[in-house]
């Protein structure tokens, strides 16, 4: 039953040049990571549940007073988003590193930054996007009014990808280290401070009548810088970890 000869015989034919396009690389990593995420849906659920629980704990621990809740709500939603995104970051490269996929990715003809970008997009789609969708619902819990809620959702929509992008750099840097998970948090959390300040400040700006435009523009600028820089930085870190 073994037909041992190679199925695609190359005798007398020059070897086909492999595809090395950046977009094909992004697509490969994105589709594979989404496929893997769909196979382990429970992990995604855990993370979303973590977000909901953290957000719900604050009113219990502080005050049920409506005005104060509305005041601290945006900040709580942002910090919880940051923590929830941090929860899944250690696994972003670790499983690929452990089973050897990462070295195959580094040896693939696709540019490594493209493959890493695909993984970052998949991380945001599976962790950031659900948070963005849930946040307005949880914001109602805090009595945040409609206009501010909309600004908060838009700020999260722009800000959470930055968290995934910056987090991926940290995840790549801490690959193969013992206690990498906690080190990752120490590395990434300070980097996320500007995102947190401008993100949570969006609602304050709306309440103060200044409009959300300034904060959202700054977040957008941050996102653009992260989109350009983070894949390069993360793939450099991946290569170092493989050496």
């Amino acid at each position, binding site marked *: 039953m073994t037909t*041992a000869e*190679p199925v695609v*015989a190359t005798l007398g034919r020059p070897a*086909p040049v492999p595809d090395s396009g950046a977009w094909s690389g992004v697509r490969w990593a994105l589709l594979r990571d989404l496929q893997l995420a769909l196979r382990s849906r429970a992990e995604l659920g855990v993370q979303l549940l973590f977000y909901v629980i953290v957000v719900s704990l604050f009113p219990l621990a502080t005050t049920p007073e409506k005005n104060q809740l509305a005041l601290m709500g945006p900040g709580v939603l942002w910090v919880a988003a940051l923590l929830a995104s941090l929860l899944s970051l250690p696994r972003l490269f670790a499983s690929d590193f452990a089973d*050897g*996929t990462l070295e195959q990715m*580094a*040896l*693939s003809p*696709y540019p490594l930054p493209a493959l890493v970008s695909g993984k970052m997009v998949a991380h945001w789609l599976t962790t950031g996007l659900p948070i963005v969708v849930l946040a307005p619902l949880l914001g109602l819990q805090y009595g945040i009014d409609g206009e501010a809620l909309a600004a908060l959702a838009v700020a999260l929509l722009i800000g959470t990808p930055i968290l995934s992008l910056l987090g991926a750099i940290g995840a790549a840097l801490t690959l193969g280290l013992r206690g990498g998970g906690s080190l990752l948090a120490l590395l990434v959390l300070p980097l996320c401070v500007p995102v947190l300040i401008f993100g949570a400040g969006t609602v304050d700006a709306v309440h103060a009548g200044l409009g959300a435009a300034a904060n959202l523009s700054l977040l957008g600028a941050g996102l653009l810088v992260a989109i350009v820089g983070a894949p390069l930085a993360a793939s450099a870190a991946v290569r170092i970890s493989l050496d």
Partner: protein
Amino acid sequence: MLEAIDLAARRGYARLFSSLSFRVEPGCALFITGANGTGKTTLLRILAGLGAPFAGTVRWRGVDVAPFAQRLREDVVYGGHLPALKDELSAEENLATLVALMGETVAPANLRDALASVSLDRQASLPARALSQGQRRRLGLARLTLTHRPLWLLDEPATALDTAGIALLKRLLTGHLERGGCALVATHQPLELPAAHVRALALS
């Protein structure tokens, strides 16, 4: 085709090998032998471009290649200790994913044929976690049949393979050499290949 010039490697402060030079021509295989810890895997990783040598250069098709060079990545298939399989995906999905990562397209029918050629056709839809060590290795062999890379770097490919699997590995290597490919194989068990162009490199 592949040249190593004065390669040296260390692990920490320990010197693994130095002034290592060799040349592998098209249609030739180089078997790298040596006791544990003599640097067989390190040498293969350097040649694959996964790490920089402590000294020396690697030359592929007449051009010096740095680690992760595009020229090399388009021509090499590296089969390391780690199988690069995802437990959640089926054998067939794993194979398709790995071949796609190498920038090559493969029709589903060819995928099935490749699985059949390594006797994994009945396990095609089993998740990879249910495969035995030998079957995981065979999946790696199936990848070799589907890609068209001229340079094969295989690290202990015979590990966990049964006699039929080793025979299959030998047939694949022979076919590859006959088509003018290069192969470097780190191995403990000697694989007797009928091809005349087999050389041995002993690390000590």
